[in-house]
């Protein structure tokens, strides 16, 4: 007979009979990673804070109005959506409105609140301080409804709600918007955001935000702080950011080379030229807060790189060859449309296949060719 094992006294503390416990059967795995959706959305809100704080300091009145109205409208829309999509089951009893409300509100989660908050903050930041209250209300309502709720709410949306709202507001009420530089007080600057032409403002002005623009896009320091936080917390996929900024920089450089070398144009230096285009307008804001939205992007790595590239190419073409001064929002919406195409189960794959590599080279090369040809033969000024 084997020896009685030598247990420490606390090994025979409690007897099993004194304990009644509930055991639940669940399927494997039984452990989960610590991070969750609420934490991820909170991280995005935290990353937006520097930009929001800067806008409050620079345009106290405009920022308050933009943020308050868009948050109120989007949160309300989200709440109504939750109530509408969780109706009380039909039974023979009569239920008062309060009961119905209580039943629906039980399905309202923290993630609903935070997702709408993120969309609202981004929407508020991509419109100028001069946006009228009705433009904000209609834009916010349209953005969250057509951009997200009609598709089925959180996680089901095809388009970035903030971008949809911005486009809606600009198309409907663009004439009433004008851009002011931070700390400019009440002096009203001209309607057209001519700062995109570059050269009017120095790199330093563009960097610290001493240019007219929308609330969030002027101060690049705040945006870069947000980017650092998103990348450290791994809320943003760095591959998309790199593909987006990289493609845009290459196209800008190619355009600059075509302007100076074959056509004898005048550009101060290539570095400054590329940098001023990257820093101008809402490009960096879009790269940090809008392209990185995981819901509207494809899921596999090669597709994400392609997605970033296509968003950058669309933004570049709209910015330089279209009648619109700014193409970041439209570019992101176009790339959103392409995301399901990149994700098509038959084509996409997580491992880099020959086809993915060819596409990732062919698409930017084709875009480059068009840029060079357009600038050289078409004579676009860039």
């Amino acid at each position, binding site marked *: *007979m*084997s*020896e*009685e*094992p*030598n*247990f*420490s006294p*606390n*090994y*025979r*503390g*409690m*007897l*099993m009979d004194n*304990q*009644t*416990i*509930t*055991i*639940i*059967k*669940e*399927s*494997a*795995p*039984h*452990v*989960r*990673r*610590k*991070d*969750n*959706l609420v*934490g*991820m959305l909170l991280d995005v809100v935290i990353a937006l804070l520097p930009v929001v704080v800067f806008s409050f300091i620079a345009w106290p009145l405009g920022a308050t109005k933009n943020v308050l109205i868009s948050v109120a409208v989007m949160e309300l829309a989200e709440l109504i959506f939750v109530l509408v999509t969780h109706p009380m089951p039909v039974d023979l009893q009569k239920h008062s409105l309060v009961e119905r409300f209580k039943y629906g509100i039980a399905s309202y*989660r923290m*993630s609903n609140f935070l997702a709408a908050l993120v969309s609202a903050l981004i929407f508020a930041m991509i419109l100028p301080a001069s946006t009228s209250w009705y433009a904000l209300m209609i834009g916010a309502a349209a953005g969250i409804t057509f951009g997200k709720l009609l598709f089925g*709410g*959180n*996680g*089901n949306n095809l388009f970035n709600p903030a971008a949809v709202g911005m486009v809606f507001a600009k198309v409907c009420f663009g004439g009433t918007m004008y851009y002011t530089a931070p700390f400019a007080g009440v002096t009203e600057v001209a309607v057209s955001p001519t700062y995109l032409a570059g050269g009017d403002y120095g790199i330093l002005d563009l960097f610290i935000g001493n240019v007219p623009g929308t609330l969030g896009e002027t101060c690049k320091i705040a945006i870069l702080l947000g980017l650092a936080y998103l990348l450290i*917390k*791994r*809320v*943003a*996929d760095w591959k998309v950011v790199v593909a987006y900024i990289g493609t845009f920089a290459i196209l800008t450089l190619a355009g600059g080379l075509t302007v100076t070398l074959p056509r004898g144009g005048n550009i101060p230096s290539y570095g400054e030229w590329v940098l001023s285009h990257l820093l101008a307008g809402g490009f960096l804001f879009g790269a940090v807060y809008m392209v990185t939205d*995981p*819901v509207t*992007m494809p*899921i*596999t*790595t090669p597709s*994400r790189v392609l997605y970033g590239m296509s968003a950058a190419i669309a933004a570049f073409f709209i910015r330089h060859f279209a009648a619109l001064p700014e193409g970041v929002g439209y570019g992101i919406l176009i790339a959103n449309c392409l995301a399901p195409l990149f994700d098509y*189960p*038959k084509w*996409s*794959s*997580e*491992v880099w296949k020959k086809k993915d590599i060819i596409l990732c080279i062919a698409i930017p090369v084709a875009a480059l060719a068009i840029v060079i040809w357009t600038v050289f033969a078409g004579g676009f000024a860039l």
Partner: protein
Amino acid sequence: MIAKTTHIENTRNLLEILPTVDIGEPEDIFIALENARCAKADLTIKEGDHVKMYQVIGMRHGPFFDQPIHSTVSGTFLGFEKHLHRSGKMVNFIHIKNDFKEEEDETVVHERTPEEIAKLTREDFMQIAKECASVGLGGSSFPTYIKFDTKGREIKTILINGVECEPYITADKRMMLEKPEEVIEGIKLLQQAFGTKDARLCIKSKYKDIIAIYDEFLRAMPDSGIKVCPVGNFYPQGWEIAMIKSATGIEVASGHLPSEYGIVDFNVSTVVGLLQNVKYNKPVIERFVSVTGDAIKCPSNFSIRVGTPMKYILEKCGGYVHPERKKVFILGGPMMGASIPSDDCICTKTVTSIIVLDHDESKEENCIRCGSCVLSCPVHLRPVQIMNAVKAMDKDTIKLLEPLKCIECGLCTYSCTSKIQVTDYVRRAKLLAKL
């Protein structure tokens, strides 16, 4: 968080340094009449019969093999009782009352001399493994003798799996630390059986202590051919195919057997069990089990007699912490182990660990397509797309996404930001793809 998961958080890693203690013998032993691989069984004893240790008391009939049932104690056969098996099913168990006399059955047990062992061929090993009902003790319960039948293929490399990549489990680690001579002796038997010198013992590279012990042992026998092969610390490194890739660089294509590439692999506990089978003709009646989890009062490594009821083990551990909370009772690792609906179950040969966790109450959110499951999947599937296809009952897309490649490692659920049971959807896709 959009990130690839390679490491599973382990809150109980102190268990690694606790030595294995013999838990002692319980008064009642239960031996499964049927198991996951064998649906039918015959018994050769009657109620009230006296049985001896190692005695063959019956025969399980599987789809393509028979497996003898051995008694693990000496005592009296009292009849049948229904208990939960590791597979989660209620199964008939043979109830044996222990008389603590430890009488061994001489007709089964006989010691082989080194000369006898040296003469054994692969067919003899196969026969011994079959008679002793040797199965994969890493948890697969795959009959070992089938591994000896390589269908004429030449085996070049023997891999010993000591990776144990699941968190919380430390049974194999303790086995390697506490029984190095037996592990090495067992490996030598395998070298003899397969006629190759190249044997590699795969150990996680972070286990410096084990690697040092084996280096020391193997220095004394320079031409043994056994090598210690430090492999990665990631999950699922213990998966056969990941281990073969790390240890030899060979990528085994899905749907092919490692023996087609000249490789055979054994779990380290199986090797030690096989040594007993060959040396004394004794079937495995004891195994190392880690009893751990957030809800266990005193986690410990135990050496447990096969057939011990779970209540006996849990009593020795001091019971549960926070009995008011809901619990999940797992046999096997927390990633791939089976959840059992009650703690009225029996420790069988293939239970590597008993883990009791507090039930995770977090709610499922909508998928936000963060892609963590796609990044984490070790076989490069796209679990989100499989989930969406299952929800839409789109069979063509399901087939296109090849869910049958899935090894059910559980990383997609583990890494899900929205706490969705993605692995469940993939399991359902596997069923649908087979239709």
